[in-house]
């Protein structure tokens, strides 16, 4: 086969795989939506999962957003003050944090922590035939395993994002005060005048979408596990990487749509 032909074939199978993957995610999402609409899930399991996934992630979310707030403010404050623009520092920290960095970093941390946990637990259930055991009883694995986790992520990521937003903006204030002795009034007034409520709300909408993406990819990858522990490790890595990439892509698309 010529080099060009084999390359064409490679591209073709790559496209094929992509379509298959996207189709698999969409099918699973469809099934989860049906379960949610028909209330075919256990609320107690959703709460249990939300608690578990939230507890797994919140410390890292808080640390990440704290340091992000600190560093934006560190860069912005000294610059702004030297140009006499200190009334913009609070606003720029809050703007960046609430609209972009809060939801996105929370999503990424969630993918690394909770998404990996979901894939690893489902994957190990697959390789030890527990998923087949469910199916053999006539119980849908998507219903009992994916639906509650996806709902839990849908609730948890926005909640974590609220934490992230608050901690990030406070961190920014602390740094501005430390570096240039900015008065609380200057900082918080700037926050208030720059940010409107819909910024905050739309940020949370993004976060909810990221939660769904992470759980969906994590669940789908978990079901693809095969072999043994090594296979579980492989799909877990894959789930985290895919989840993070999708968050970047969707973040861009959502910013484009939500913040015209």
């Amino acid at each position, binding site marked *: 086969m010529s080099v060009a032909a084999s390359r064409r074939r490679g591209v073709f199978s790559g496209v094929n795989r992509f379509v298959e993957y996207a189709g698999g995610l969409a099918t699973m999402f469809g099934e989860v939506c049906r379960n949610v609409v028909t209330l075919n899930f256990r609320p107690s399991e959703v709460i249990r999962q939300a608690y578990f996934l939230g507890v797994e992630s919140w410390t890292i979310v808080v640390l990440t957003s704290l340091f992000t707030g600190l560093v934006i403010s560190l860069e912005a404050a000294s610059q702004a003050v030297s140009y006499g623009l200190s009334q913009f520092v609070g606003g720029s920290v809050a703007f960046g944090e609430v609209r972009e960095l809060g939801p996105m970093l929370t999503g990424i941390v969630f993918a690394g922590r909770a998404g990996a946990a979901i894939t690893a*637990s489902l994957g190990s*259930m697959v390789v*030890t*035939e*527990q998923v*087949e*055991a469910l*199916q*053999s*009883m*006539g*119980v*849908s694995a998507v219903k*009992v395993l994916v639906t509650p986790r996806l709902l839990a992520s849908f609730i948890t990521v926005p909640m974590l994002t609220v934490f992230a937003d608050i901690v990030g903006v406070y961190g920014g204030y602390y740094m501005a005060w430390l570096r240039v002795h900015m008065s609380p009034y200057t900082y918080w007034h700037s926050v208030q005048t720059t940010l409107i409520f819909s910024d905050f709300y739309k940020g949370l909408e993004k976060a909810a979408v990221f939660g769904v993406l992470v759980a969906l990819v994590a669940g789908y990858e978990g079901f693809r596990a095969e072999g043994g522990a090594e296979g579980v490790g492989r799909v877990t890595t894959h789930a985290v990487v895919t989840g993070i990439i999708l968050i970047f892509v969707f973040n861009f698309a959502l910013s484009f749509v939500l913040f015209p």
Partner: protein
Amino acid sequence: MIDEKPSRELEPSPPPPDVAIRLQSIELRYGEKIVLSDCSLDCIRGHTTCIIGLSGAGKSTILRVANGLRRPTRGCVFTLGSELSRLPETEILEIRKRIGFAFQYNALFDSMTVADNVAFPLYELTDLEDDEINERVKSALESVGLDGEGDRLPGELSGGMQKRAGFARAIVNEPEIIMFDEPTTGLDPIMTNIITETIKNIQHKLKVTCLVISHDLPSVFAIADEIALLFEGTIIEYGSVSKVRQSPNPIVQQFLQGSDVGPIPV
């Protein structure tokens, strides 16, 4: 186009009502590897059919085909009156609610206690009250000799105890068909007898159809109404215990005697 139909699909022949499971000319491949080919088997309602065969012959695969966990690449599967090989997954799930399955490697939910494992099918598939569920779980655990172990996690049990817990989970919902994948492998002789007796009792009491895979010939002879020998992807011998024991087929004789001389390559 119409007159150019490729090699005609096999004509499905639905079984009479006294046959609970019919496999008709099943072929199943994993990639290139052909695991089952032209494999046919009838399991009579209310009887115990034992499948015996070499390790890796495809016995576990047959069970999975029979309850729709694997779709054959060719052939028809009729289970409890429906042609599984044509049904969508959602309808297969409905049929499986009437089938109990005890896995070769137990497949217990390791995050749940033994009692919760056994209760799981009842919670998911029935509207029973909690008291009734507890009662049923208790008696299922008792029938496999696990009374008092309900609160432990599967990881804290020995292999044989896990096996029996999986067994309790398969029978708790009083299914119409129970499939046991090597129920006695890994158990001590006394427990093997208890399990063999349990299968016999359940079968007599509930008149369920049992499909059992086993290497343990004494227990096969004790519980089987019919025996099927799977060899190289096909059922090469099928019939009552005495018929199979007297089979003139040298492969069957070699298998029953466990001898290393004969037509089976070792």
